[in-house]
C-alpha cells in the first residue's frame, strides 16, 4: 500500500478521540512542581531502558546507570548463572555509593567477581548477597543474610535491559510494551552492534527535546540544509505518512522526502560527499549483505503502515526511550534523562552491523557525522523553546495533525500524573 501523502478522509489525530484537537499547555515542561510529580508518577513507575545486553558480554560484567530523576544509581550485572540483574548502587553499611571509578558523579562499568565498597570494604556477590564484612564480630546481632543489596526489577526484551523502580510493577515489561512496540520483535538487534554513542547536557525539559524528534513538520525548515539549495522550499513541508499510537507509546514512519529514498535521488540533488562515499544522512547506500536485514525478512511490525517505499520507523517508547530503525540496515536510539524541570541529559547511539572493511567503517562515519549535525540544530533551537515557554507569555498552543505524537506525549504524561494523584499518593519528600 503506497501512500506518499495522507488520504483525503484521514486525520491521524481524529482516530484517537481521547487526544482531542484543542490547544495544548506546556506547563508540564516548565513547572518545578509538575516535575516533582512526574518523577514519582512516571519515572518510578514505568519500565526504563538502561542499556543493552552487549554491554554485559560475560559473567561478572556490570555497568552502573545514574538516574538523577529518581535520585538513585543502579548496578546492572550479569550474574554467575548468566542472568541479568539490577540493584540500587548503595552500600548496606552506611549508604556509600558502592560502585564508581573516577568520581561518584560518573558512571562506571567493568567485569568483577564481587562488588566491594570503597569505604569499609564490605563485599557483595553478583547475586547481591552480602559476602564479607570487615570485623563482623564487632557488629551486634548481625546476620549477613539480612543485608543484601536492594534489588531493582529488571527484565530484558530483544537485548534491551529495562528496570522498574516501583516496589511492585503494575505490569510486566511485555505488558507495558504492548503489541505495537513488540512489533519490533525479531529485528536482528544483536547483529547490528557497532556502536557510536553521544551524550549532551541540554537546557530544556526532556519532553520538549523529545518532541523535536517525533514530528517531521520542522524538518524542511530547521533542517532546510539537508536539501541542496535548489531543492529548498518552505512549501515542501515534510509529511510523514504513517502515525500510530498504542497505550503510552507512539510510532511514526516515513517513506523518504517526497516519497523518494535519499540514495535514489539524482546525484545533483545530493551533497558531493554522498555519491563520493555512497553514504549519507539515511545511512550507507548499500544495505549490508545480512539476510536478517533484508526487508523481506524483517518483522511486519516494523512498518505497520505498509509504506512503500519505506525509510524509517520511529518508535517512541514511553517515557523517554526512542528506537529509529532505518531501511538501510541500521538503527539508532535516543534517551532523555531528566535532571530538573528544565534540564536533561540526552544520549544518542548509532548501531550498524560490524564493519568488515575500512570503507564500510568510513560509510558509518559519514552517517554518524551528518546525522549528528541535524541533532545539533535541534539542540540549539530547543534552548530557545524552553526560554519561550518559561516566559509564560502564552499558556496554550496549537498542534497540527502532523504533531499528533507531541500531543500524545504530553497527554499521556498528564494522565500518568493524574492517575498517581488519584491513587492518593503524595509526592515523596
Amino acid at each position: 500500500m503506497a501512500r506518499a501523502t495522507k488520504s483525503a478522509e484521514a486525520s491521524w489525530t481524529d482516530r484517537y478521540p481521547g487526544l482531542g484537537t484543542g490547544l495544548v499547555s506546556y506547563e508540564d515542561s516548565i513547572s518545578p512542581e509538575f516535575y516533582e510529580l512526574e518523577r514519582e508518577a512516571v519515572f518510578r513507575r514505568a519500565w526504563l531502558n538502561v542499556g543493552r545486553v552487549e554491554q554485559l558480554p560475560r559473567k561478572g560484567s556490570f555497568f552502573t546507570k545514574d538516574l538523577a530523576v529518581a535520585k538513585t544509581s543502579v548496578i546492572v550485572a550479569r550474574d554467575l548463572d548468566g542472568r541479568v540483574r539490577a540493584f540500587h548502587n548503595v552500600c548496606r553499611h552506611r549508604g556509600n555509593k558502592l560502585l564508581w571509578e573516577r568520581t561518584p558523579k560518573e558512571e562506571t562499568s567493568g567485569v568483577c567477581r564481587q562488588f566491594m565498597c570503597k569505604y569499609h570494604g564490605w563485599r557483595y556477590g553478583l547475586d547481591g548477597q552480602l559476602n564479607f564484612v570487615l570485623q563482623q564480630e564487632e557488629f551486634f546481632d548481625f546476620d549477613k543474610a539480612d543485608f543484601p543489596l536492594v534489588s531493582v526489577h529488571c527484565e530484558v526484551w530483544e537485548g534491551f535491559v529495562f528496570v522498574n523502580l516501583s516496589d511492585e510493577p503494575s505490569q510486566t515489561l511485555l505488558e507495558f510494551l504492548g503489541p505495537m512496540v513488540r512489533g519490533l520483535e525479531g529485528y536482528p538487534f544483536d547483529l547490528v552492534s557497532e556502536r557510536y554513542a553521544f551524550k549532551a547536557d541540554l537546557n530544556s525539559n526532556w519532553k520538549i527535546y523529545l518532541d523535536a524528534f517525533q514530528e517531521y513538520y520542522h524538518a524542511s525548515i530547521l533542517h532546510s540544509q539537508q536539501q541542496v539549495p535548489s531543492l529548498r522550499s518552505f512549501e515542501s513541508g515534510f509529511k510523514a505518512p504513517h502515525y500510530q499510537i498504542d497505550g503510552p507509546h507512539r510510532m511514526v514512519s516515513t517513506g523518504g522526502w517526497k516519497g523518494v529514498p535519499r540514495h535514489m535521488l539524482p546525484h545533483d540533488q545530493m551533497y558531493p560527499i554522498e555519491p563520493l562515499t555512497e553514504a549519507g544522512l539515511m545511512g550507507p547506500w548499500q544495505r549490508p549483505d545480512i539476510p536478517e536485514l533484508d526487508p523481506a525478512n524483517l518483522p511486519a511490525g516494523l512498518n505497520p503502515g505498509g509504506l512503500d517505499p519505506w525509510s524509517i520507523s520511529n518508535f517512541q517508547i514511553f517515557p523517554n526511550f526512542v528506537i529509529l530503525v532505518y531501511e538501510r540496515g541500521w538503527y539508532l536510539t535516543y534517551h532523555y534523562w531528566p535532571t530538573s524541570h528544565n534540564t536533561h541529559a540526552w544520549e544518542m547511539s548509532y548501531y550498524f552491523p560490524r564493519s568488515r572493511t575500512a570503507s564500510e567503517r568510513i560509510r558509518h562515519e559519514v552517517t554518524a557525522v551528518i546525522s549528528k549535525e541535524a541533532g545539533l540544530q535541534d539542540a540549539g533551537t530547543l534552548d530557545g523553546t524552553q526560554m519561550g515557554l518559561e516566559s509564560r507569555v502564552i499558556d496554550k498552543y496549537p498542534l497540527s495533525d502532523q504533531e499528533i505524537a507531541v500531543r500524545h506525549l504530553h497527554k499521556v504524561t498528564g494522565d500518568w500524573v493524574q492517575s498517581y494523584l488519584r491513587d492518593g499518593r503524595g509526592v515523596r519528600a
Partner: protein
Amino acid sequence: MSDSLLPEEFADLEPFAARWCIPGEPARYTARLNSTMADMQAFYDAAFPRVRDAMAYLDQFRLDELPERAENLLHLVYSFVMVSLPVEVWHQPRVIDAGTAYFDRYLEPAP
C-alpha cells in the same frame, strides 16, 4: 625509511597529514571548530579526488590489522568527512542554528 605518516601512494596528501590524521571524533570536531574555512577548503580540495582511492587501498587490509600508515590514512579520511559539511553545506565551521550545542561522542569503534 622516510618519516612520512601516510602510505607512499598517498604522498600527495602528506602536507595535510600532520594536521588532519586525527584519531577520535571529539578531537576532529575540535580541529574543525579551530580551523578557518580556507584551511578546510584546501584540505577538502586535495583530499576529495583521493577518497575513493583511499577506500580501495584500505580495503586490502583486515580492518583490525591496519598497518600504522594505513590507519593514519583512515583517520585522514575521517577528517575529510568532518570538514565536508562545513565546506559543502554550512560555509562556516559551525552548524548553522546549532547555538552552543555540543554532543560528546564518548564511544566509537576502533580504528
